């Protein structure tokens, strides 16, 4: 019995230790954002009073406001475009399915095998040829339609009752009307899940903007924080404030919608 109690205690010690390790880097990041660099390197882990000064330095040396705005604009455009295009397609593939569409879907799923690194050079050349470098359009285009999103919406359309569609048709509702006025409201949770995935991917995307956002005016958050650490002397307070700002939107989404977030991760399994 004593042995069991000891094991039980060890289990909690282990879990608390792991949780601490999991949270600590983020906590350290947030706390360091309020401290001077001198205090950060001498191991201060209590909140300080230099938040405003760090922000002033960050804003003076880097275009943080612009990067935030660009990132938001790109991510929201990507999310809306992707939800519209992929949900209509997913609905179409399920509700009107026939041999031809099933085959097309199978072919589209093959695109999930293509890693971004393998197509980034041709994509870059295409975007350059079209004169779209440094634009939101270029940022969004390769991710508007993904087989994964179409698949996600096709799966959810499977649970959409066919009787409702037939009834609505008898009432004289158009096919597009049925989609927008009946499918969309019922499938709200799928939209939330899909929206979180797309927004996070777009907000965090680094490699693609690194290639196409060459002008200083089109800088996005991942590029900005990646630049923060360049140079010989690092102002840790300022760097950590920049990083904190860049993870704030996604951490808020995570804390508010943790279950949809987990659902989004799990949906790649089905």
């Amino acid at each position: 019995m004593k042995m069991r109690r000891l094991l039980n205690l060890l289990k909690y010690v282990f879990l608390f230790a792991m949780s601490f390790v999991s949270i600590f880097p983020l906590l350290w990041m947030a706390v360091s954002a309020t401290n001077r660099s001198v205090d950060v390197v001498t191991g201060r882990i209590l909140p300080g009073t230099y938040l405003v000064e760090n922000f002033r330095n960050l804003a003076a040396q880097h275009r943080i406001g612009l990067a935030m705005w660009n990132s938001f604009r790109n991510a929201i455009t990507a999310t809306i475009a992707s939800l519209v295009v992929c949900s209509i397609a997913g609905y179409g593939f399920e509700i009107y399915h026939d041999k031809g569409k099933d085959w097309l879907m199978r072919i589209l799923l093959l695109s999930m095998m293509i890693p971004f690194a393998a197509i980034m050079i041709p994509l870059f050349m295409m975007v350059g040829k079209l004169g779209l470098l440094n634009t939101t359009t270029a940022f969004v285009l390769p991710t508007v339609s993904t087989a994964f999103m179409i698949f996600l919406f096709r799966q959810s359309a499977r649970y959409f009752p066919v009787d409702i569609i037939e009834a609505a048709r008898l009432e004289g509702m158009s096919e597009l009307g049925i989609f927008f006025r009946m499918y969309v409201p019922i499938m709200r949770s799928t939209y939330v899940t899909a929206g979180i995935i797309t927004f996070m991917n777009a907000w965090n995307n680094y490699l693609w903007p690194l290639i196409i956002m060459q002008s200083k005016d089109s800088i996005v958050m991942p590029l900005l924080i990646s630049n923060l650490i360049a140079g010989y002397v690092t102002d840790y307070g300022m760097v950590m404030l920049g990083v904190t700002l860049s993870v704030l939107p996604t951490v808020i989404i995570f804390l508010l919608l943790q279950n949809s977030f987990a659902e989004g991760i799990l949906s790649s399994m089905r």
Partner: protein
Amino acid sequence: MGHVLTLRRRQSLIGWLFVVPASVLIFVFYFYPIVRAALLSFQTGVGVNLQYAGLFNYNRLLTDTVLRAAVGNVFIYLIIQVPIMLLLALILASLLNDPNLKFRGFFRTALFLPCATSLVSYAIVFRSLFALDGFVNYLLTTLRIVERPINWIGSPWTARALIIIALTWRWTGYNMVFYLAGLQNIDNSIYEAALIDGASGFTRFTRITIPLLKPIILLTTIMSTNGTLQLFDETMNLTNGGPANATLSISQYIYRLSFEYSPRFGYAAAISFMVFLMVAVLSFIQMRVGDTR
């Protein structure tokens, strides 16, 4: 009857209108570029001045020592990091699966939280934590564990260790979520029966949890392998591939060849195509596994 048929045909046509825009986009932004990459890999030259060169790039690929180093690094990550992470995720998931566990919600949120951070952000946080004057060295020297601060990104194995620590921090909770979902499908009475039979926690873990989660373990192994093959953000921002290419990843090498040195698109495309083949084979296995589940 004829009327019904035309109605069906009309609906099928509307269905096509629904699926065509998304499909065209996938053809233009996935299938066309991969064909282009394949064609590019048979060409050589600087920038966009390219000419047909046969298998030149593929011959070069075989003798490229930097590429060999990058592939070697990726395999080091695969062999060391993926098993540690997946085992840790499995243990955590089976501990959290206990319905009588206290603070369950807290543990789950805490362990899952790293997934909310972008790859660049956590790479920079880890780079700062493990800097020469960073918090980890402060702690190690203050506690007298080491005499002098460790220059983590200064030597090959500490730099690789840093990448491995960082990757494990970021992705353990992610994999745990998969295992937790899998464990929920296992009937709790199996565990209760084992408990009555006097099976220890370890036995229950190795005899019930691991065998029943096998398909999901395979799935997460493939996903992790896939992710490791495409590793980029972390090596770029944590160690910048250094020291002396000791942490360089394949994707970062492709990026360097295309956008940092004088652009060798043809050769970079040949390496890209190699990565594509590796990922494609893995994804194929993954789909097969998914089918039989």
